[in-house]
């Protein structure tokens, strides 16, 4: 630690004054971000989910003031989600960063968002007034495989024509993709920009995803057979596997891979985002009991992967604990003749990460007539 000198004290005083006066947190610099909290507390901790770092990192109190700061290394273009844990009188409260207007919402609520230097939300995720909007339709169907009635939301592209045939994309947690990953706007934009062809997108939402997405044969039959059959009655769909895709994130990624593996030929295109591909080479996996059926499936898949699709897009955030499982899958898939595009990004296990990858995934799996159409 440097010795205190009048000059150093003056510098520290000016830095403290600057931090005390800031109205925005975190303060971003080229190598990281500094979180700032104003308020009385016994302790303040940063709670975030970055694999490799502690889940809780303590702030430092500056002098005697109610000013708390924490600098965290954050490489360029990173994006992390976090909350503050404020401890007062022995009680802990998790709050959003009061000085940060950036928030991300997910099925569990909202988190504050820190964007490292260089991160920019992709412009194709923002509403484009020139893009003709598609519509959301709905179909109800009886699933014999699940012994249940299901409602599926269907995205129908703008300028839909019965006289042409469309690719079909089935999306697990489809309503979450709409709410938290701007999927409808992204589809509108990418179709408008001719980067993907107009397509029918079936948005499924399971009432019990941790069971049905975890290598469940009935659910696989539902998404691979029953749902497409019903959609073929309602929409003109292209029958080729190259025009059939299935997609999901987290457990939805597991469900997508499982459905394609159990029903080879049903889907030629897969999007697997931060798949929860727990497995064990020997012994038991390290995760909770919820992952038991997942690990049984993934272990089996790793033994005999076959060729569940011609092309797969995989992505994972390097701040996710699942990075190891996702990385491990890539060479296996390639070894079995599957064309794989794999992307790692400085982000976590969250919907905005999955949103930001949609262009890369969809334009690779379903290239649009970008080069041929000049309207």
């Amino acid at each position, binding site marked *: 630690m440097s010795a205190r000198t009048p000059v150093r004290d003056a510098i520290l005083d000016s830095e403290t004054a600057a931090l005390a006066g800031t109205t925005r947190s975190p303060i971003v610099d080229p190598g990281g971000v500094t979180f700032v909290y104003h308020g009385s507390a016994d302790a303040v901790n940063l709670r975030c989910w970055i694999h490799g770092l502690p889940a809780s990192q303590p702030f430092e109190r500056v002098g005697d003031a109610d000013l708390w700061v924490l600098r965290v290394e954050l490489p360029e273009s990173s994006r992390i989600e976090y909350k503050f844990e404020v401890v007062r009188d022995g009680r802990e409260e998790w709050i959003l960063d009061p000085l940060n207007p950036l928030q991300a919402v997910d099925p569990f609520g909202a988190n504050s968002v820190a964007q490292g230097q260089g991160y920019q939300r992709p412009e194709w995720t923002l509403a484009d007034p020139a893009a003709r909007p598609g519509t959301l339709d709905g179909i109800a169907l009886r699933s014999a495989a699940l012994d249940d009635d299901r409602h599926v939301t269907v995205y129908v592209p703008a300028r839909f024509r019965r006289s*042409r045939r469309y690719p079909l994309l089935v999306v697990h947690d489809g309503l979450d993709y709409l709410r938290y990953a701007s999927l409808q706007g992204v589809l509108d934009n990418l179709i408008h920009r001719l980067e993907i062809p107009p397509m029918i997108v079936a948005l499924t939402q399971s009432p019990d995803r941790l069971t049905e997405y975890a290598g469940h044969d009935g659910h696989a039959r539902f998404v691979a057979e029953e749902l497409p059959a019903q959609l073929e009655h309602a929409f003109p769909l292209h029958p080729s596997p190259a025009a059939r895709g299935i997609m999901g994130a987290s457990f939805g990624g597991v469900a997508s891979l499982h459905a394609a593996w159990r029903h080879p030929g049903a889907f030629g295109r897969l999007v697997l985002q931060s798949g929860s591909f727990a497995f064990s080479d020997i012994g038991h996996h390290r995760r909770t009991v919820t992952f038991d059926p997942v690990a049984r499936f993934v272990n089996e898949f790793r033994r005999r992967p076959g060729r569940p699709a011609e092309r797969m897009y995989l992505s994972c955030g390097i701040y996710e604990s699942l990075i190891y499982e996702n990385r491990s899958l890539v060479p296996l898939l390639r070894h079995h003749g599957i064309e794989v595009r794999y992307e790692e990004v400085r982000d976590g296990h969250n919907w905005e990460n999955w949103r930001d990858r949609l262009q*890369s995934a969809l334009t690779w799996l379903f*290239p649009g007539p*970008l080069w*041929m*159409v*000049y309207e």
Partner: protein
Amino acid sequence: MVSSARRFGQYPPMHDVLILGPQFRAPNLREALGRAGIDGPVAAVTAGWQEREGELDALQQHLGQPVRDLRLYERAEAVFAQDGELHAAYRTRQNELRRMQDFYRLRLCHAKAAVRELQQAQDGSAVARQALRSALGALRRLDAGHLRELRAVHARFERAWSAEKHTLLAQQRLDIERVIASAGAVCIAGGHVAVLLNRLRLFGLGRALRTRPLVAWSAGAMAVAERVVLFHDHPPQGAGNAELFEAGLGLVPRAVFLPHAASRLALGDPGRVGLLARRLAPDIGYTLDDGDELRWHRGRLAAARGSCRLARSGTTVPAGDVA
């Protein structure tokens, strides 16, 4: 470059041709027709819109008059449905063209990479300059050879399946020519450039379109030039190599049209602009964005509004300026 049509002197002299930027956001067709003194009934080719062919509400509203669509897409579907042999031959040709394009792309990728690397290796020496000139020459020869081969494929197909020799095609063509003859102008809209060009070619319209004033925009403009070049400098996937895609109808000489250039081309990158201009030379690449208008009169560029031409120096200059 001399178009095959002019070389053989088999076609009537060309009427005025108006080339416009995209029409769906900021249409300027009516004003352009007025400025050129073109009036009368309008016939339209909207085959590039495929299944949406003939949806003319916006166009009619803009012009303030009814428009007759030549319905080339629909006619082609009807001909294919009735003449299985022709349809099979057409598909065979399309497959051949696709394979040719794939192989051309492979070669293009390497040829462009060589040019790019040599551009970066320039150190002011004569040796480096000569190497770059040679690589550029190879790229231009690749484009020229591909164009020759494409023309040969079309010539073979047209010899076997010309509208003159096949009743169904001949009937459709006569009907189309009647509509064209009664029109004050023929408009060729944009859309899917291959679909559009294939339909124009299937009905042998290169000749008939010379007989009336012609207005073409976006993909329509690309189709009436001598060469169709596809381009995109920043696609979400792939290398972004502009590629020679087809021989056009050759109704507008010495020009290659680049619709949506502002969004598709890196116009601020002198390296890319200069390279494309050199590949196209002696033809000139014209940008076509909203509101742009070019007028060809007796085979020469007579007026220009808004459009720019790509210069070999890597800049863009107003199309109306003297080169």
